[in-house]
């Protein structure tokens, strides 16, 4: 009698049209190209939702800036006397904050003009001015790329697990495992140059993978929900690292200080943009990781099995795929990638272990993978975007005093909005899009679309698969989407007479 859970949890690609098991029903009416249809498709498109999600998130962010601003509050005090003051103050606060965010993350016009003048003063002209000035102006972008590097790699790891139907919340733990391993090999072991770096990277991959595989093993062997076990493993790793940083093995001579010695020079990732910038070769690894994600999920037999198990574990099992081994495999690969991110973070950016080495990368990676719909291109863009937000936020914090936590709020809001496209469309007055043939307001008409993006299993290209690990995820299937296809109708009749017995 567990038929409810099985029935409702059955993952059917959201947004896809017809109902399994309806003999003779027509396919979805997609692909006709009347202009009304085209308009609807644009309105339905994910791009619009993404853009509007950012707009709304930044609008709410602006509100927060205003609430927090003393000047605005002061001007509000005499609002009725001189309302213009309030508006001026509002505008000044918001524009200053967001300008700084841009300056801090992508292009710094001040740096550009300062350098340009310097060079001009020293007699340069033409390209001799432009190039160094551009370099100075783009310094923030280099920092953004540096921050994006581990984020993208970790998100790729998350994407592997999401698309395989596993909710890996264990980014922090796996990151710590990878970072610790890479860091330890980096400062405690003596190896020849290139080999040392290689050893560090491999250590990160293996340790991250093994740490991730623990959750996979618990799921495969005992059916333990990976959501819970990865959360627990995060904290275990955090405290284990905290403990390690009190031991002589990890702190070296200075045991009072909970940081490791710097990793040796030949274990560091080479810098890409000269000594003045932190940008390092990890960026290339990030690009490789993204390519690997594409290959793994679209071209490899391993990824084929991962996806099959993620979408319908039972069918995969019947087709001779070992579901348990797949769960361990998924978590190993995911953990290995996240571990690599930790390794890259230590070997390239931080260059030493601290208790807070993982920062919020583990959780940010989840949001980036969601935002990027777990696809390679999406992750690349989302990773850069989030990195830009956080470097920009840091600059904004120092220059304006607006706490960087604002960025965290904006990021969370973006993901929430993108997870619920019907909400975004409702906010911009496009409600009818979700139920073109139904004049009556019904709140949940486009639900599966919501879960498609929320479900994170989505492939950027094909609209998505929602992960449905046992007992945890259960996005509604297209069965329940009256707007986009034929209905359950008599499907109980039809498909699952056997189901209840």
């Amino acid at each position, binding site marked *: 009698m567990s038929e409810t859970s099985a029935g409702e949890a059955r993952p059917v690609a959201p947004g896809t049209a017809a109902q*399994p098991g*309806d*003999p003779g029903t027509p396919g979805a009416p997609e692909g006709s190209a009347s202009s009304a249809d085209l308009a609807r498709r644009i309105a339905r498109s994910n791009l619009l939702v993404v853009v509007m999600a950012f707009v709304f998130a930044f609008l709410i962010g602006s509100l927060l800036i205003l609430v927090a601003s003393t000047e605005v509050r002061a001007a509000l005090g005499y609002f009725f006397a001189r309302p213009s003051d309030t508006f001026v103050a509002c505008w000044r606060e918001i524009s200053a904050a967001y300008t700084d965010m841009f300056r801090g993350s992508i292009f710094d016009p001040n740096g550009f003009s300062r350098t340009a003048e310097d060079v001009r003063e020293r007699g340069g002209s033409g390209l001799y001015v432009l190039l160094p000035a551009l370099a100075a102006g783009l310094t923030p972008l280099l920092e953004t790329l540096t921050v994006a590097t581990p984020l993208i790699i970790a998100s790729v790891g998350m994407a592997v697990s999401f698309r395989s139907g596993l909710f890996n919340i264990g980014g922090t733990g796996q990151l710590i495992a990878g970072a610790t391993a890479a860091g330890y090999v980096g400062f405690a072991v003596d190896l020849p140059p290139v080999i040392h770096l290689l050893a560090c990277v491999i250590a990160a991959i293996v340790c991250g993978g093994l740490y991730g595989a623990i959750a996979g093993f618990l799921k495969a062997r005992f059916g333990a929900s990976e959501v819970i076990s990865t959360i627990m493993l995060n904290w275990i790793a955090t405290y284990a690292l905290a403990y390690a940083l009190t031991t002589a093995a990890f702190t070296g001579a200075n045991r009072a200080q909970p940081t490791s010695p710097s990793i040796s020079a030949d274990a560091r990732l080479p810098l890409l943009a000269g000594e003045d910038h932190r940008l390092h070769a990890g960026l290339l690894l990030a690009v490789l990781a993204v390519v690997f994600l594409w290959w793994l999920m679209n071209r490899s*037999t391993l990824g084929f099995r991962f996806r099959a198990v993620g979408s319908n574990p039972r069918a995969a099992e019947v087709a001779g795929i070992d579901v348990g081994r797949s769960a361990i495999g998924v978590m190993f690969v995911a953990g290995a990638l996240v571990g690599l991110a930790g390794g890259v973070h230590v070997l390239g950016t931080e260059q030493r272990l601290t208790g807070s080495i993982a920062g919020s990368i583990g959780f940010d990676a989840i949001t980036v993978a969601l935002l990027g719909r777990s696809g390679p291109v999406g992750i690349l863009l989302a990773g850069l975007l989030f990195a830009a937000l956080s470097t920009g936020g840091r600059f904004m914090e120092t220059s304006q005093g607006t706490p960087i936590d604002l960025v965290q709020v904006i990021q969370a809001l973006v993901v929430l909005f993108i997870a619920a496209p019907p909400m975004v469309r409702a906010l911009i007055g496009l409600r009818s899009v979700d139920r073109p043939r139904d004049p009556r307001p019904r709140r949940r008409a486009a639900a599966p679309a919501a879960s498609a993006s929320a479900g994170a299993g989505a492939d950027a290209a094909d609209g998505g698969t929602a992960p449905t690990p046992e007992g945890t995820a259960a996005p509604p299937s297209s069965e329940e989407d009256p707007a986009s296809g034929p209905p359950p109708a008599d499907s109980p009749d039809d498909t699952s007479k056997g189901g209840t017995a």
Partner: protein
Amino acid sequence: MKLELQGITKVFGTFVANDSIDLVVSPGEIHSLLGENGAGKSTLMNVLYGLYRPDGGQILLDDRPVRFSGPGDAMRAGIGMVHQHFMLVPPFTVAENVVLGHEPTSGGLLDLGAARRAVREISERFGFDLDPDAVVEDLPVGAQQRVEIIKALSRRAEVLVLDEPTAVLTPQETDELMGIMRQLRDEGTSIVFITHKLREVKAVADRITVIRRGKVVGTAEPTADQTELASLMVGRAVELSLVKEPARTGDVALEVRGLGVTDEDGSAPLDGIDLEVREGEILGIAGVQGNGQTELTEALLGLQKNAHGSVRLHGTELVGRTTRQILDEGVGFVPEDRTHDALVPDFTVAENLILDQHRRAPFGTGLALHPAAIRARATADVAEYDVRTGSIDDHVSTLSGGNQQKVVMARALGRELSLLIASQPTRGVDVGSIEFLHRRLIAERDRGTPVIIVSTELDEVIQLSDRIAVMYRGAILGIVPADEDRDVLGLMMAGYTVEAAREAVAAGARTTDTQLVDEGEIA
């Protein structure tokens, strides 16, 4: 209570599930709603029960129009429903399930004593043997169905809808259920009895409405001719038999000895199975659902972790091997529930067609897939099996049930096989496709492949098989030739051994439908 549906229309997207359906159920009659799978019967009843909102038409109770915004309204109006998938909360007790939604309370707390009394009272009236404190998930299916009936009756339902109630029952239990239905009718309850089984309709219905593709295509009296009803139901004259050559059997290919499955709790859903299948022969396995057929096919496929005994395929022992190894031995498998056991909904048609072959040449290696070969295979299969799909790159979940089943069959039959196991090979498939798939199965047999067909539809087993094994409570009661008396098979499905069944039939025992034949109601 008189129930009247007028012009009920229900549209899902572009699909019209119910097209202006009229239906009148008089007080104290058993009204049978007859239709194929997917005809729209359940949709109609869900509209009646307030689960779906109709897009047109109205419902009248005792000539007064009513509107239901939810099942609660329908229940208050006196409509009760026994769902095909029982609406029982598994970890609750019988009493808790019965009172859920209209719980008696005393002093703010649940009054389970009153609930138990209600259960006992109704149980006694109908001679049910139900412990109010039993936990529902521990009860057998038949007993769970009775809990559903008590649940509806305890709410004083005057119209009772039974949605495919016999799918999970043995012929004997079905007869008992029919007795209950008659008793209820005689007490004045109107009953809507949804089914696609002609025999049951003729046995119990007072009036019959036939639905096809969302429309009422006719009403009939139970005295109507059976083939006439059948053709009404499926839309054209149906040839109820399949022409096939006699089997040219070869050596014994599959030898099963003492195959059993023991669950962790110590129960044995499959016990001591012995059977042989020869090359070029179809062995049909009949039986009421839930008598070990699933476990048998799963044990053969290595999907049962706790299987023991011996399965030899051309001399190779299969028990203890993994599913993958068994598939690599050349075993083709069509699972009984395609959505659940066979298809990956987010995969394309092409990907689903090579799901079990994805790492073998030419479709892939241990490392990478070969997309060109995969597409070529898909293109060929889609053409050969006439799978109606926009493209081989469409998600398989966009296909209709019949086409999905063709994908599953194409996958199983798409290579050189040493054994084919097909479970419910045509479940939920339209009539035209059934014939096609049946022909494919026979063709596979004629190529010399040993074939096992498992089906709970006795007709299908009889049509396809060269020999028939009947399963009951996890064991094979006997293996008989395909031309065995239908009554004997029916009794065996109810637990008689071959000899006992033959004796009983000789002595005049009849199950419902043959009684009807005797009474001249079935031609």
